[in-house]
């Protein structure tokens, strides 16, 4: 029962931290509103572009390589998620688990090498 209490209290603590973290910017910005001047002019509200008149929409299309790196990230992230329970339970599992993990890591390393050879990892 005590372990369950600690478990629940820990996450109660997380809620308290989240609450405080949310309140700080809200309070600081509300108090700041009373202190700071507010005289918006046309010039002040212009988008900054090194002194030039801004042109076109800023939301341009990005290159596909960003997307590719994000995909690689998801794949390796999923892999590491499997690594953690393995590392925690390793003492109870023994050498067999080591071989299982070796196969798993080698598979993904092959994927990395493939991406490398296909020049996906090149950032231009």
């Amino acid at each position: 029962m005590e372990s369950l209490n600690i478990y629940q209290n820990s996450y109660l603590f997380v809620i308290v931290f989240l609450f405080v973290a949310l309140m700080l910017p809200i309070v600081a910005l509300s108090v700041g509103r009373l202190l700071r001047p507010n005289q918006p002019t046309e010039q002040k509200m212009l988008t900054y572009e090194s002194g030039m008149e801004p042109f076109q929409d800023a939301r341009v299309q990005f290159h596909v390589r960003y997307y590719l790196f994000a995909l690689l990230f998801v794949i390796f992230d999923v892999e590491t998620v499997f690594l953690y329970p393995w590392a925690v339970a390793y003492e109870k599992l023994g050498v067999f688990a080591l071989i299982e993990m070796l196969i798993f890591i080698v598979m993904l390393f092959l994927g990395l090498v493939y991406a490398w050879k296909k020049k996906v990892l090149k950032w231009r």
Partner: protein
Amino acid sequence: MEWLAERLAQAPGLENMLYFLAITLPLLSIILGFVTYAILAERKVIGYIQLRYGPNRVGGRFGLLQTVADVLKLLIKEDTRPKLADKPLYILAPIIAFVPSFAILVAIPITETLTFANMGVGLLYVIAVSGLSTIGMVTAGWASNNKYALMGGMRAVAQMISYEVPLIMSAVGVVLFAGSLNLTVIVEQQQFVPYILLQPIGFIVFFIAATAELNRTPFDLPEAESELIAGYHVEYSGFRWAMFMLSEYVYLFAMSALITVLFLGGWNPIIGLGFIPDVVWFALKFSIVVFVFMWIRATLPRLRADQLMEFGWKVLLPVAMFNIFFSAVLKELFF
């Protein structure tokens, strides 16, 4: 701080929540104090390394009130918002960036009795929640509707995701030796030997990846002043901008504390010096890590974007993978 541990063992309820709030608020003020003086210390350290004085006007010879003055100035500065910006997201972005940075501190144990949440998945919680800040950055970039901001935001995300994988992987070695994700247990396991000695490769990879995650020089491309002006927060001013700055330094606090806990043995004293209190040991190790971060910042030049990405994927990731394997073999043979 014994009462805190007792509180954690009692049935949860509103009363507990108030107690937790009572310990969170002092922590918040300590964090704010740390940020204030970390900024000053950083300017001073970089100043001395580059043979300058650094701030020395406001608040005596050491400029002790410089950052305080800066904060007051930010508080009364006008808050401008570009007309083309996306208003709700523009307001939301600094909050999204800040909240995770403070929320991760809950999992980090300071001393044996001064621990906040005793979570079974502490390490994973810290890494997972800190990843949420990237969303705040890209939101800021997108909401500003500014070319530099969007470029900076996208670069920030690309960099963060590239270095998050080696960061997570290099910590696996520590988990392997400790047999737990609970940060308190990890510290207790280091009573005699800190993991920096057992995991030197893991430590180096973790440290480099942490520097990149913190967006500090030599990995400060998202904020490169000379190329992107200030990156994702170029349109922000006043206290909204200060929230981004604050979250950056709270992350510095959290990351240094995490490195202390994972690799330097947390509050454990060097054997034979146990008469010095736990808190002092933690603070000492923590300060050394913070100092090294500043030292690196003052010493190294910025990387190029392609070097940065390729270093993450082609060097750090394979090394981290190898380290996991090496650690497992080491554990199998000697422990």
